[in-house]
C-alpha cells in the first residue's frame, strides 16, 4: 500500500471526489492560485479550473454563507477555513444556518456540504491560533464532526463527508499534515460514527481522537516496554460517536483514560465519561481520568506551551493512576 502524508491523502480524497461529481466545488482563502495555505489543494486549480476551485476574499462569514446558499440549490460545497480559529467568524452560518436548515424547513432543504480546515495547536502560534474546537461543534444537532488522526482516515472520512447529505465539520490536525501512513489508492471510504481500535491491550482503555491518536500510540509503545498493554480507541468521528466501541473496550479493560487536545470544561472527554459512567458503571475498577489542555489560553513561550498541552507524559501518568501503579 502506498505510504503518503496526511496532506496528500486529503488532496487525493478531494481530487477523487471532484472528479466523481461535478456539483462538488472547493472554496476558501488561498485555495486556488496559492495552492492552499497548507497545500492541501495543490494542483486542483489547474485540474478543475476557477469555477470549481474558488479563491475567496478574507471573509469567513460571507463565504460560509455562500456555501450554504449553493448547497440549497443542489451543489456540494467544500468550504475551507484557513484554520478553525478563523471559522469562529463564520459560526453563525455553520450553526444557525447549515445545521438547522433541514429541520426548520420540515425536511425540504438538505445541506450537503463540508466545512474543513486545520484545528488545534501547532507550535508557538500563541493564544488566538492554538485552539481545538470539536466540543463546540459536536454540541450542535444537525452537524457531523470528523476528527481524522491518520492519513488513511483523513482520506476515507473526507470522501464520506463530501458524499454525505448533511453538513459535516471536518477537523484536520495542523500538526498532522506531514505525518505519513499507508493509504489505499482510489476508492477508500471510512463511514461516519465508526471508531477504530488502533491498538489492543487489556490493561486500560485510552479513548481519543484527532491529533492525540498519535500521542496515544506512542504511549502504547512506551508502556508495552513496561508490560502495560493498552487499548487505543480512535473515535474518528466525535459526532456521531461510536459508543459501542467505547463500551466494548471498557468492558474488557475495566479502566479508562480519555485523551483530548481541547480544554477540560465541557470538552469531548466529558461526554465520553458521561457515557462510560452510565453504561459501564459496574465494569469500572477505577474512576475514569481525563487528559486535556490546561485550563489557560495557549501561551507563546516554548516551556509554557509545552506545559499547557496534553502529552505522552500526562497520559502515562493518568494510565498508571487508574491502574493504581503510581
Amino acid at each position, binding site marked *: 500500500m502506498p505510504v503518503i502524508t496526511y496532506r496528500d491523502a486529503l488532496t487525493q480524497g478531494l481530487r477523487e471526489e471532484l472528479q466523481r*461529481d461535478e456539483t462538488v*466545488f472547493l472554496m476558501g482563502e488561498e485555495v486556488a492560485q496559492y495552492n492552499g495555505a497548507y497545500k492541501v489543494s495543490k494542483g486542483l486549480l489547474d485540474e478543475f479550473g476557477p*469555477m470549481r476551485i474558488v479563491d*475567496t*476574499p478574507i*471573509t469567513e*462569514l*460571507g*463565504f*460560509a*454563507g*455562500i*456555501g*450554504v*446558499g*449553493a*448547497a*440549497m*440549490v*443542489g*451543489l*456540494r*460545497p467544500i468550504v475551507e477555513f484557513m484554520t478553525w480559529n478563523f471559522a469562529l467568524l463564520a459560526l*453563525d*452560518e455553520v450553526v*444557525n*444556518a447549515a445545521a438547522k*436548515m*433541514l*429541520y*426548520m*424547513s*420540515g*425536511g*425540504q*432543504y*438538505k445541506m*450537503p456540504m463540508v466545512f474543513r480546515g486545520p484545528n488545534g495547536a501547532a507550535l508557538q502560534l500563541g493564544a488566538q491560533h492554538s485552539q481545538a474546537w470539536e466540543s463546540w461543534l459536536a454540541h450542535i*444537532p*444537525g452537524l*457531523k464532526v470528523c476528527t481524522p488522526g491518520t492519513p488513511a482516515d483523513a482520506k476515507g472520512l473526507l470522501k*464520506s463527508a*463530501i*458524499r*454525505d*447529505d*448533511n453538513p459535516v465539520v471536518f477537523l484536520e490536525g495542523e500538526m498532522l499534515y506531514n505525518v505519513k501512513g499507508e493509504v489505499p489508492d482510489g476508492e477508500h471510504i471510512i463511514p461516519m460514527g465508526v471508531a477504530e481500535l488502533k491498538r489492543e491491550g487489556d490493561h486500560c482503555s485510552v479513548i481519543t481522537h484527532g491529533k492525540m491518536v498519535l500521542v496515544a500510540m506512542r504511549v502504547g509503545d512506551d508502556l508495552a516496554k513496561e508490560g502495560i498493554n493498552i487499548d487505543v480507541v480512535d473515535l474518528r468521528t466525535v459526532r456521531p460517536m461510536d459508543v459501542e466501541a467505547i463500551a466494548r473496550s471498557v468492558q474488557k479493560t475495566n479502566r479508562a483514560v480519555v485523551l483530548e487536545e481541547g480544554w477540560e470544561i465541557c470538552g469531548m472527554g466529558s461526554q465520553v465519561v458521561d457515557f462510560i459512567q452510565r453504561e459501564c458503571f459496574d465494569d469500572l475498577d477505577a474512576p475514569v481520568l481525563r487528559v486535556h489542555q490546561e485550563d489557560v489560553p495557549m501561551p507563546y513561550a516554548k516551556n509554557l506551551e509545552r506545559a499547557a498541552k496534553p502529552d505522552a507524559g500526562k497520559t502515562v501518568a493518568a494510565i498508571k493512576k487508574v491502574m493504581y501503579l503510581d
Partner: protein
Amino acid sequence: MRTEAKRPAAPKGKDNVPAGDNRASGNGAGGSPPPAEMQGTTVEQRRELLKSMLTQRRFEERCAEAYALGKIGGFCHLYIGQEAISTGVMSMLRPDDYVITAYRDHGQALARGIAPRAVMAELFGRVDGCSGGKGGSMHLFDAKTNFLGGHGIVGSHVPIAAGVAFGIKYKRGNQVCVCFFGEAAVNIGAFHEALNMASLWNLPVIFIIENNRYGMGTAISRSTANEDVIVRAKGYRMDGETVDGQDVFAVRECMSRAIEKARKEKRPTLIEMRTYRFMGHSMSDAVSGTYRTKDELEENMKRDPILLLHNKMFEAGELTEGEMHKMDDEAKAVAQDAWDFADASPEPPLENLYKDVLADTTS
C-alpha cells in the same frame, strides 16, 4: 403533506406586457387610458396585484387575532403596511427564480404563492404547515415555490442569497435570487461580505432593503451614520436605486431593470424600497408611543399601499366600490379558510421530533 388551498393568485411571470394589452386595459368606466405609471400592466394584472395585497393584509389581521388568542406562539412579526413590496417584487419573478427573506416573511410567502392554509398552519404549529410545524412564523419554507426561508438572524441570509446566485451561475442557469431584509441589516458584517462577493463574482442576485425606518425600536437616524443607505451600493461597484416602496408600480418598474441586469449580465443590484410598518416590530411591541409618535404613524398610514393602488384604479375608472368590497370579502374568506384549516390540522406527531435532524442519504 401540504394541502392545496384557494390561493390569492399571486400574479406571476410577465415582466413585459405587449402594447396591445395596455391599450386593451384602458377599458374602465371613464374609457380613457390609465396613467402612465400603470402602463405595462393589464387591468387584470392590476386587479391581481390589489387582490394579493388585500389577501396579505386580511390574513395578517387574523394572525394578530390568533396571536392574542394564543393560537400563534413565539415571535410574530407582521408585514402590514409593506405589502406593495412583496406583491410588486413577486409579480415580476418567474416560478423558477429564488426568494429568500428575513423573519417578517408572511406577506412574502403569500405573495410568492405559498398556500394561505399552509402558512397559517405553520403559524399555528401544525403538521400541515409549510415547514411541517417545525419552523414557525420566522421560518416559512416552500421548495415548490423556491421560497428558501424565513431566517431569524439579522443579515445572516444575505450571504446565503449570494450563494444561491453562485449556484445559479455554476449551473449556467438564468434564474435570479431575490433577497429581502430590513434597513437595520445594512450595518451588519454579513451584508457587506455578501455584497462584496456578489459584485466581485458577478452573481445574479437582487438585494432589497425594505427601509421601514426602524430596526425594532431604533430609528435609522440613531443607528446608521449615513441614512442614505443606497450609497453602500457604490462601495461595492454595484448599481443601486431607491424607490417608493408604497407604490407597487414603482416597485415593479425598478425590479424589471434589476431582473434584466441579473439575468442577462449576471450583475447584482441593491434596491432601497422606502416603506413603513403600520404595526409594532413584533406582537409584543406597542404600535406607537415609545419610539415613534402616533402622529407619525397616522401620517404614514395615509400612504397605505393598498389605498394608493385602490385610488389609482378607482380614478382610472377600472374599479368600483362594489368590486372593491367584493374583493375584500374574498380576501377575508381566504384568511378565514386558512384559519379554519390550520385550526383543524393536527399537531405534528411526536415521532417527528427526531425527524429531519439529519438526512439519511448520501450521494
